[in-house]
């Protein structure tokens, strides 16, 4: 197969293509189990394989994909034909940033492959969690296990040949109850990434049992809590919501294709302009954010992106100043040309596709906030006069240029004079992105820093679901509107 792909790449190069690559998925497998109120509602597996072909011709892309690899000539020709028609409407001929031709392999660190664990063992875990969650006041209880395993072979016309073998594990539990007004409330738990691996061994029964008890307790507290007040307060975001805040208003805002207008017709743009790099005060000096694809234990680390560029750890925001973006080979060239200066030295290695039948686009890796020097969560609470601690991702809605946002959380704890006072329900907060990050007044230390994962980030047309991570500390922001 590999030999066929290389021959086809050479054939299209000889026919005039500037660049050609192929992503061959010998296999991609998934296994999903959902137990809902004791019923194993979903026990499913899937497998797919195929090839995606990308061709650059006269400054324009063409793409074609199929699970049928019996006619590689036809498949490559289709991609070439698609590029030919694209070349009839070009405004900025695509160029690709320089990279090294690599022969490399990446294996995600895994001790126990979840696909060799028996179905019975997986169900046994879910049953144990279900029994733990089955408490008075809990109307719905859900346990979920999702496993993914894939092999990707990348070859291109520049001499790269990269094999990736990736395993992912996404476990979670959730409880839901209904208050006296008939309003549903839920709490959930998905474990942060603690160890250095990504396999079945990361599912720690003890941690799950401890958190099952916690989320039931907290959900029941919410059911009898007062409404979140409608006023301005300091908000203290725990990692369970800070990761999503980071994702939506730093991660997506700094995808270079969005900044350049390539997502304007659907996902939206970004308030950031090319003039802002090196100058824009994105947040207070306490804010340092990075795109770190070198963390070992999260789905935002993949060794090499789908341009064949190695994983990197790059600063995005340095002590509050915007310095970097999430980039692939195409966009950095266009951005530098449009800006008439070199903003980006090269691709940051963040061009990824969700499947063989989708084209790579700029995707987040692990968009992290560095831990700060404001101590533990207790320390931050003690230094807060009038605030609210927030956790859980009930709802999120972001402006089309990521300029403003509205979040609802699962739980809130009011803080008065440095002490936690009471739980409130239906907690929300909203703000303008730059004003919000410039109000960052405390960043928790390493003890508060946690790696959360996202397994359902959507972007692009056709839509692509991507997996990635966020390492974030507890953060406090001042004068934020809550309760609306």
């Amino acid at each position: 197969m590999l030999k066929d792909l290389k021959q086809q790449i050479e054939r299209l190069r000889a026919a005039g293509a500037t660049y050609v690559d192929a992503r061959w998925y010998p296999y991609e497998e998934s296994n999903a189990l959902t137990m809902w109120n004791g019923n194993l509602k979903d026990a499913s597996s899937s497998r797919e394989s195929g090839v995606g072909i990308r061709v650059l011709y006269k400054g324009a892309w063409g793409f074609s994909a199929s699970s049928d690899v019996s006619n590689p000539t036809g498949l490559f020709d289709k991609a070439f034909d698609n590029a030919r028609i694209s070349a009839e409407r070009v405004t900025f001929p695509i160029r690709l940033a320089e990279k090294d031709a690599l022969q490399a392999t990446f294996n995600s660190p895994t001790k126990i492959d979840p696909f060799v664990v028996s179905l019975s063992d997986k169900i046994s875990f879910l049953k144990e969690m279900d029994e733990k969650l089955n408490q008075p006041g809990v109307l719905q209880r859900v346990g979920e296990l999702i496993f993914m395993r894939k092999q990707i072979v990348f070859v291109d016309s520049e001499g790269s040949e990269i094999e990736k073998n990736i395993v992912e594990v996404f476990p979670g539990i959730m409880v839901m109850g209904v208050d006296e007004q008939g309003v549903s409330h839920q709490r959930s738990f998905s474990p942060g990434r603690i160890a250095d691996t990504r396999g079945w061994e990361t599912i720690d029964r003890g941690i799950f049992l401890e958190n099952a008890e916690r989320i039931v307790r907290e959900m029941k507290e919410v059911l009898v809590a007062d409404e979140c007040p409608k006023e301005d307060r300091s908000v203290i975001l725990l990692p369970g919501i800070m990761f999503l805040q980071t994702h939506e208003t730093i991660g997506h805002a700094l995808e270079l294709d969005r900044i350049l207008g390539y997502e304007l017709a659907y996902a939206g743009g970004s308030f950031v302009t090319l003039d802002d790099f090196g100058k824009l005060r994105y947040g207070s000096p306490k804010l340092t954010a990075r795109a770190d694809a070198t963390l070992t234990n999260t789905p935002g680390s993949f060794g090499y992106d789908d341009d064949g560029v190695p994983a990197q750890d790059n600063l995005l925001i340095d002590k509050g100043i915007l310095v970097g973006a999430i980039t692939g080979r195409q966009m950095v060239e266009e951005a530098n040309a449009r800006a008439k200066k070199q903003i980006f030295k090269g691709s940051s290695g963040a061009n990824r596709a969700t499947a063989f039948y989708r084209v790579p686009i700029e995707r987040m890796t692990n968009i992290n906030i560095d831990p700060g020097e404001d101590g533990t969560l207790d320390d931050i609470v003690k230094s807060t006069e009038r605030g609210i601690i927030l956790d859980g991702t009930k709802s999120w809605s972001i402006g089309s240029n990521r300029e403003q946002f509205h979040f609802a959380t699962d739980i809130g704890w009011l803080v008065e004079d440095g002490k936690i006072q009471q739980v409130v329900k239906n907690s929300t907060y909203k703000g303008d992105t730059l004003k919000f990050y410039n109000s960052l007044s405390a960043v928790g230390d390493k003890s508060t820093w946690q790696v959360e994962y996202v397994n359902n980030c959507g972007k692009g047309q056709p839509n692509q679901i991507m997996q990635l991570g966020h390492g974030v500390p507890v953060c406090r922001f001042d004068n934020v509107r809550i309760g609306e």
Partner: protein
Amino acid sequence: MKEKILQILADLRAYAIGKGIEATFFYHEEDSYLMRFANSAISLNTNEHLIRLEITAYEGRKRASYALITDLGKLEEMKQGIDIAGEMVKHAQPLNYDPTIPVYTETFVDEGGFDPALASLSNEERLAYFNRLAGNLETNDVKLGGIFSSGSNIVAAANTRSEHSIYIKTSDAQVTAVLSHAKLKWEVIAEQSAWQKSDLTPEALHDDLAFLLERYQNDAPQQIPLGRYDIVFGPAATGDLISFMNWIGFSGGALKRGFSCLKEEQVGQKVFSDKFTLLDEPARLETFPSKIDLMGIKRSTFPLIENGVFKGFTWYQDDADEFGAQPTGHTVMHKSLWLKPGDFPAATLRELIEQPRDNDILYIPYLHYMNLVNPSKGVVTASSRFGALLLKKDGSIVVPYNVRVTQSLFDIFGDKVAWMSKAETVNNTSSSYGARNPTSVILPTFIRVNDLEISHSNSSY
């Protein structure tokens, strides 16, 4: 092709029976084309031909499924899938209810929603369509973006309980055209949905874009004050709101699990404006309908809301099994939603603007990134985007920066509804996550709702 697919399903059925495996088979084939535009160029031109087969095996109350992306020539691979599902189900845990396995009493074939001319559009035709809709509107600063997504879909199903099969073939196209200002960061939009080639009229999109463009190019945008406004929603905004209502309102399973904004005691009660009638209408081909569900239940007009009165919940078969309810023919990939029109005469934005106004009206054509703040109360939040206008009572027009609306669906579609237009628009709500599933909602082109709160108003784009 149809005969080959039905034969493969028959072969798989025979294999499963031979192996003693009780099973259902769901076949999905898509031929998808997407031409994407950005910065006035074709930024992506792609096509995928994918065949998905999902096999669900049953053993008493136990159930397990295996899905694969495959090809018609790989019968052995499909049979292996049956073996895997058959092995998985042995280790599954019994449900506490009996899952229904369908029995089809006749073979059902429907190709009425398939137009070969639309399904076989060429690259050149897609590009020509976009060139026509954009004609003379692009400048150095105003760039064209959008998508032309088109293709065909085959859904087929069979099972070991009956010899018959289901086969439904549709064609579809979704066009989104956006003109955006590269520096000022505003955008205007025009959209079209098609189930047949004759639905594609680029001239109509050109007119819509030209009209909005004139406003956005020549008028200085303003931050409008927070407060309450009379709002006219365009079809994309209303389509999103109706889709959310469908998501959190009508499912019997969601009701029983406590996630529905509509309650059992509201059946037969007036919960929305008497101007509000919402149907599931599989006779409308614009909705890419299923006239039969995957359980073999024939589908016909199903009233959800009639003159504001909630008529009843819809039941997916598995929910009906779990909660002891009667299935309603809603084990489908999507409903065929039709919000019936009113009598307001405006059919286009030009006509809307020309109507006399008794108050300032905020026109919101599109709501971006809608999400549920409080599902039980039907509270949603979203931002305006793509060509909002503040139509002043004195006849002048202001271009507003984007605003946020956080409101209950009961408020939006309750007694504050002032009118709905007589003209209808098909709003294509397809999502291309996973398998192709063309979906649309038929709506009044404009709906006016009075006295809704704007909770956030941008000071820039």
